[in-house]
């Protein structure tokens, strides 16, 4: 599979995921509408409101992420060496030059975000610039640019927003129960059943949606490692960079649950205990496995 078929497969997958989420969300809205007793039109209004909120957050997601992470944009004169690395790799990948942001934090980490290659952002911490040598930094930047080139940044933005939409709807529903829905005595039994399903869905659906998001995110990391290595033609650079990042025990302070999956390695530095259940909730595949795969290339 070459890089172009990867990109088109990724685009197809994006639509598939969006389609599945729409189906999922319609089901939820139907159940919520029946259960709250307000009827489907009220649930529809809830859907429209949260849809608009999500659409807005799609366009402003990069700014929100950068704001949350305290990142500052830099010019070429601020760090010509970093700019040269990014320029060269962009030429190699055939994508336009992204904007470059810096986070003032000594924990080594990096991420890419944006909607498409024309509106992309690569962000690195000052720690990663200090701790890695040129070949390792090239490996990391190539990994991030692969996320840009593969349209992972769009896929992940959309997935994150759909997960947010599911959570918002669950929240709306639970609130409407607080204020007490309209009761219709004759239909009480049917409504009771939907109420039970609705509450179960409201509790479970955000968790299910998050699990889907994490599974997608873990898969993308392996692909970005591979295509990043193809770009630099030097897998060892990224492998030893990941090794250094794994050894560094300092957590990244500006990272939170909403942004953790974006980074090249888990910014919390939590322990990975390896059980399948714990693995379901990991934002990243085990770093040792990634290094092993890179070294075997």
């Amino acid at each position, binding site marked *: 599979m*070459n*890089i*172009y078929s990867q990109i088109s497969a990724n685009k197809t997958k994006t639509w598939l995921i969006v389609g599945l989420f729409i189906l999922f969300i319609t089901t939820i809205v139907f159940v919520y509408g029946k259960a709250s007793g307000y009827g489907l039109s009220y649930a529809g209004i809830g859907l429209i409101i949260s849809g608009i909120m999500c659409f807005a957050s799609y366009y402003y997601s990069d700014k929100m992420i950068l704001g949350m992470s305290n990142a500052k944009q830099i010019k070429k004169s601020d760090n010509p060496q970093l700019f040269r690395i990014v*320029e*060269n*790799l962009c*030429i*190699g990948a*055939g994508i336009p030059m992204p904007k470059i942001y810096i986070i003032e934090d000594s924990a080594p980490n990096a991420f890419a975000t944006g909607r498409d290659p024309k509106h992309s952002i690569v962000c690195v911490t000052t720690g990663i610039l200090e701790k890695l040598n040129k070949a390792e930094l090239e490996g990391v930047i190539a990994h991030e640019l692969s996320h840009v080139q593969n349209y992972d940044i769009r896929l992940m933005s959309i997935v994150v927003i759909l997960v947010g939409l599911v959570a918002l709807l669950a929240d709306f529903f639970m609130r409407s129960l607080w204020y007490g829905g309209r009761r219709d005595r004759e239909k009480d039994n049917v409504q009771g059943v939907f109420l039970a399903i609705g509450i179960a869905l409201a509790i479970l659906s955000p968790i299910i949606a998050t699990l889907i998001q994490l599974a997608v995110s873990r898969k993308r990391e392996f692909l970005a490692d591979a295509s990043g290595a193809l770009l630099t033609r030097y897998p060892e650079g990224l492998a030893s960079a990941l090794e250094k990042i794994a050894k560094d025990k300092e957590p990244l302070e500006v990272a939170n649950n909403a942004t953790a999956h974006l980074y090249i390695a888990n910014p919390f530095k939590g322990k990975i205990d390896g059980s399948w259940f714990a693995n379901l909730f990991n934002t990243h595949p085990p770093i040792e496995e990634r290094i092993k795969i890179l070294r075997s290339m």
Partner: protein
Amino acid sequence: MSPSLIIIIAVIIIVLFVWFTYNSLATGKVRIKEALSGIDVQLKRRVDLVPNLVNTVKGYSKHEKELLENVTKARASLMNAKGTVEKAKSDNMLSSALKSLIAISESYPDLKASKNFLELQEELSDIEAKIAYARQFYNSNVQNYNSTLAAFPGSLIGSMFAYKPEEFFAAKESEKEPVKVKF
């Protein structure tokens, strides 16, 4: 199903097949062209840098006339080069000429220390790295296109519409061979 329906479906499938394969070949060709213009941008940057470099070296070293002429000649041949193979060849010529030009700075301490020369040298090595990446991108596009063209059904459709394999932008011979040291 009636036989005519089966025939219609078969024809539709074949048409779609031809259509998609033709499109992938055509986009492949466009991408190669784009990638080549990416190389051209960097080659032009290098061509523009050479006169500056030659003048700087001239100011410090009077006895390297032949070397400077070589560089100027290689630059001229790169400017006039047409087609991928010729461009790659004259680019390699310019690279080796520039390499020996940079090497003589060792025997001219004033030149080696000059700020102007250091800046030019840095820019030159940056351009060279960018040429290497642009070449890599071009070659990966050529490889995609050529392998589509070599395998079925690309081979069939390609010969129907007279698509030919594209040339790689060859790496410098000196990059492949170990460095020879002469005394």
